[in-house]
Structure formats: C-alpha cells, structure tokens
C-alpha cells in the first residue's frame, strides 16, 4: 500500500500524532473499509476524502475512539489506543476535540455552557475564569455575544462554529472535523477553512478532516487518504496537489470533476 503514497519526504518529516495500522472498519459483519495504513503527522491538516458512503465518517469514529476497529491498531504516539485501559483512553480523548457533522451541541445548555462543560469537568478553574474562557473560544469562531443562546436558537452554520468552539475548549492536540462545510454556503465554508488553517498555525494543532468538498481539500490539506467505496480500501494517500498530478485515475477524476461534490451529508 505504501507504494501508492507519494512524497515520502513529507511522510517522515514530522512526529506522528495518530497512526492507523492495517485498520478494518466494519459494522458487524459488513466491512466498510479495510487495510487502512496511514500516519498523521503533528501539525498536519489531514483530509480523509472519498465519494459519498465510502466510510469516511465511520473511519473518523474509529480514529476518535467512539467505535473500535474490527481489526488493526490505532496508535496515538506510542500508545495503542484500543489496547489501552479505559482510563488511558479517556486521557487520550481528553486531548482530542471533535466537531460533529450536526454540531452535536448539548441542546439543553447555552453555547457558553456547552464550551464550559469540559472545562468544569476537567479543571478547577473558578466559574468566572471558565465563563471568560468560554467567551474567548466563542469569540475565536466568530460567535461573540451569543453566549446565552441555546443551540435551537441559532443557524446551522453557527451551530457548527459553536461545535468547533467546544472542540477547542481544552486546547486539544488533535481536532477531528466531520464534514465541516456540509450544509454551509460557499462563503461560510471558505471562512471555516481559513479558521481551521489559522488555528493550526497559531495553536499548532493536528487537524483531521472528513470532507468531499474539493475547495476545502485544496485549500487546507497537507496530507490525505482517498477511500474507495468499490474496493473498500484506501487507493491513494498524500498531498492532494501531488495526487492531482501523480494519483490513480479514480482519484484524479474525483479531484478534477468533483465526483461526489455537493452539499449535504453522506450518512
């Protein structure tokens, strides 16, 4: 599989944040993807791409620790995530943030309370400090002044941004994005891409993004894997700009014609 991954220089340049080692993603006996081998370097913006229904989101759930892989190992640094104890897994998950496709905000709490909850759970900060931190994170994603709104009172794009603010609450090392631009207008989607780049550059986070939006892929990705629905495995990996020149035909077609391009989810 490694033979299809171009630019090995990029592959070994940085430390590894997350690595998938021969991972199989399955629901019961139904295999979604298999033989997945890739590494996500620290500070990378790693894009998981592929057509609708190829298992991108399912792979993300395995990487972020919500579903166990049917086979294979997910490494966080030197630690085998699914082989670790529950306490160690919680400690790793504490260092990761997730922005869900729908936002998945806690609907019975205000935006500020959403961002504050992980802080209340994990830190001994005073309520005032927590409130200020929550305001800061909301301001970072352009939601200053919306602290006391409930998730049902704001738009879909705002929910996504609030979800991002919450994902950033604990200053995570790795942030996962499930379809960040799905359902957003092109301007909002581009702004979100800029925000992701800025956060990577300023906070040094590792970013893992599931998307099929070409604009996003080319704007932010420094590395990627391409999942294929037919062969149920990854058929390419590397920088999308390189893939456009040297990648397999299916990937080039995806990247040029925008197969699978469009709005909405792929659930």
């Amino acid at each position, binding site marked *: 599989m490694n033979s299809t991954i171009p630019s090995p220089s990029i592959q070994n340049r940085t430390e590894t944040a997350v690595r998938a080692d021969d991972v199989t993603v399955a629901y019961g006996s*139904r295999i979604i993807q298999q033989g997945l081998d890739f590494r996500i370097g620290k500070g990378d913006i790693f894009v998981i791409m592929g057509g609708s229904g190829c298992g991108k989101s399912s792979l993300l*759930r395995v990487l*972020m*620790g*919500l579903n166990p892989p049917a086979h294979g190992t997910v490494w966080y640094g030197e630690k085998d995530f699914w082989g670790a104890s529950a306490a160690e*897994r*919680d*400690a*790793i*998950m*504490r260092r*990761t*943030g*997730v922005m*869900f496709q*729908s936002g*998945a*905000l*806690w*609907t*019975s709490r205000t935006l500020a309370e959403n961002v504050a*909850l*992980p802080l*209340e*759970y994990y830190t001994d900060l005073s309520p005032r400090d927590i409130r200020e931190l929550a305001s800061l994170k909301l301001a970072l994603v352009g939601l200053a002044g919306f602290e006391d709104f409930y998730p049902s009172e704001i738009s879909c794009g705002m929910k996504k941004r609030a979800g991002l603010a*919450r994902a950033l609450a*604990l200053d995570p090392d790795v942030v996962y994005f499930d379809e960040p631009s799905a359902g957003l207008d092109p301007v909002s989607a581009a702004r979100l891409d800029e925000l992701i780049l800025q956060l990577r550059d300023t906070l040094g986070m590792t970013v893992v993004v599931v998307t099929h939006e070409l604009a996003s892929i080319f704007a932010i990705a420094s590395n990627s894997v391409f999942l294929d629905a037919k062969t149920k495995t990854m058929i390419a990996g590397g920088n999308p700009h390189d893939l456009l020149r040297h990648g397999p035909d299916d990937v080039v077609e995806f990247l040029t014609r925008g197969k699978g391009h469009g709005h909405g989810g792929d659930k």
Partner: protein
Amino acid sequence: MDAALAELEGASTVEFRARDLESWDSLLLAAFNAVAREAARLGLRVDVSALPDGMAPMLDMALAVAPSDQARGQHDEGFLEMIGGKVVAVPGITRNVLEFMGEVTQSLLRFCSGRASFSRRDLWNVFRECGADALPIVTLTSLLLGLILAFVSSMQLKLFGAEIYVASLVGVSMVRVMGPVLTGIVLAGRTGASFAAVIGSMQVNEEVDALTGFGISPMDFLVLPRVLGLAIMTPLLTIYSDIAGIAGGFLVGVLMLDITPAAYMDNALGFMKMSYVWIGLLHALVFGILISLCGCYQGIRSGRNAAAVGHATTAAVVNSIVGIIIATSVITIIFTVVDI
C-alpha cells in the same frame, strides 16, 4: 413477469417500443425499469431507442448504477419467525442489562472513591424535577388514595361497629406499602419516562457521543446523577405521600364517620410501628433505583430515530411499573417469611 421472462428463452434483446406515446408518468417508467433490470440480470441487451424523448435518458439513468450488493430484500416476518426472533434476542438483552448494571456499579464505585464527577447542576435538576415538581401530583393522588382506602374499609368495618379501625388500617397500609407503590408509579410515569426521553434524544443528536469524545463517561455524567437523585428523592417523597394519605383517611374519618380527631390520631399512631416506616422507605429506595435504571438504560440503548425514542420511553415506564410490582411482591414475601 417471471412467466413472461421465462418465455424469452433464447432471446438476446429486450426492446421497448412506445415511440408514439404522448403522455406518460413515473408508474410506466417504474414498470419498464423493473423489466429492464430483470432483463439485464438475465444477460439480455436492453434497447430503449424506441421510447419517447425524455423517457429513454431517464431509464438509462436508473439503469446506469447496478443495485448495491448491500441492498436489503423486503421480507415479511411470519408469526413463528417473530416469536423465534424474540426468543433469540433474550440472551443478548440479558447481557446488555447485566453489562449496564455492571457499568453503573463501576461508576458508583468511582463516585465513592471520588474519581467520578458530574455537573452538580444536573443533580439539582433531578432533585427539583422528581422531587419538588412532583409534589402536587403526589399530594393529589396520595390524598385521594387515603380517602378511597378509608371509604372502602369503613363499609366493611361498619358491619362490626369497628369504624375506628379505619384510622390504623389507612395509616399502616399507606406507610408500609401503598405510599411507596403510589409514589413509585407516579415517578415511573413522570421521571422514568423523562430520563429515557432526554437521554434518548441526546443519543439521536450525537450528544452522548460528544460527551464520550471528551473522555467524559456518559455513565458518570448522565446516569449516575439520575440514579443518585432518584434514590434519594423517592424515599423523601414517600414520607410526604404517607402523610398526605393519612390526611385523606383523617378527612373521611372525622367528616363522614364522626370519629373525633383525637381518637383518629390515637388509633392511627397506636398501631404504627417504626419497622413499618423502615419497610416503606426500603420499598421506596428500591423503586427509586429501579425507575432510574430502567429510564437510563432505555435512553442509553435507544436507537437513533424519533420512533426509537418513543419506544424507549414506553419501555422505560412499562418496565419500571412491572419492576415495582415484582419488587413489592418479593419484599413483602421476604418480610412475611421473617415475620416483621
């Protein structure tokens, strides 16, 4: 259609001829589509060139992608199959329930050793929701139950001129079993259902995943405060219900049976034993834990759609009430055997 296709033995092409058709709708297209798919499956060539403009491209579009090999066939479940399916599901459900109880126990141990935490606000919400907010309905039902018990028993006791014993009968039965059972049933309908619906909707909305994604255990954060809250509030509410029930009996005794207030209270308290109060509170504690476990289990296990949340809510209430009745029987039998 199968018979028609069987006659095609040896044919190589299926051709649709409807060139002169002036108007058509999707129903015709659906019929053509079914024929064309079957023909393609048998390896026959499909010729759509003689179809009206617009129809051929649409048929091509429908046929362009082969049906998914993951497609599920429609399947009507027979009666026996349904029964079999339910029986086969029993070991799985048993394992799930035991797993859930184990997780709750672990969570409780973590809490006792100070390693599990949850939002204090959630605990207060449970206290308020199943305690203070339930007071009006518990008052009403308990008072009326006291009235009913007094009325019905007085009819029989009158035959022996023993109306005064209405007081002790209402008092003892309320405190020992009726108070806790009534409170339990009210809480099962109010709070158990609400637990299942709230956690179930959170499941639908990926909110539970969002907690897990932060390394926050849904057991510690969602289930534990609800179980603790209800385990504490049900006995307290039961004491209140006992008092309201006795007040109901008091009203009937004093206003209808002409028993003096002093005589009523004397009789009611004279037959009361402290052990009855403890037995009643034990019932209440068991019910509180039972109701919260049923509600939370159904919520956590809820499927990810609207109907599943409805199902979870119904199951939570039904399981709680059945559980309350069974637990009452078991406790009553145990205490009868050991003679308390």
